[in-house]
């Protein structure tokens, strides 16, 4: 499996969204190419980013 650079500092919605789009561009260039706001795929990326944002919030709350 490829060694992926994982950053533990991106913990908000926009950072997760940008990371997922970058990941899709890097690993699925022949499967998905539409990253416009209106596309259904971007909708799923944003939903995943939102969930990760909320999980990060609760993770930090628990740690503190």
């Amino acid at each position, binding site marked *: 499996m490829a060694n992926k650079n994982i950053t533990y500092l991106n913990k908000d919605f926009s950072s997760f969204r940008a990371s997922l789009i970058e990941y899709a561009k890097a690993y699925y260039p022949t499967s*998905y*190419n539409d990253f416009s*706001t*209106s596309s*259904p*795929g971007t*909708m799923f990326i944003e939903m995943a*980013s939102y969930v990760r944002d909320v999980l990060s919030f609760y993770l930090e709350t628990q740690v503190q």
Partner: protein
Amino acid sequence: MAYGLKNINVLDLRPSTGIGVQLPFSTAGVFQTVYTTKDQLKYNIINYLLTNNRERIFNPNFGANIRAQLFKQVDQDTLDTLSTSIKAGIHQYFSNVVITKFDIVGDPQAHLLTVNFSYTIKNTGVSDNIIINING
């Protein structure tokens, strides 16, 4: 004789390259890949029309907000207002789309709105048509 050159998206020159996903998600594998930018634009517009305001995370203005109008008084003024807002939204989110024909018809008894419009994509000569029935 002079003639207008047509633009072709570079992704359309590679037929095996997937562009996005199709709507609705009803196939066996849930997601079905779309291979042309023309079809993907159509699904993106459908996605816009079927989205209400405040449904998209961190983008509350995205969406045509049609379903919110279903249980309001459907008269000509409402339809005109809705038509204007949909056209403005399409102009904002799909800047390469030119609407050539737009009709919105309401049936208050059946809580039904029908949106029917034709469009062309700028500089490509590609045209298409979308008909959507939205009922409550």
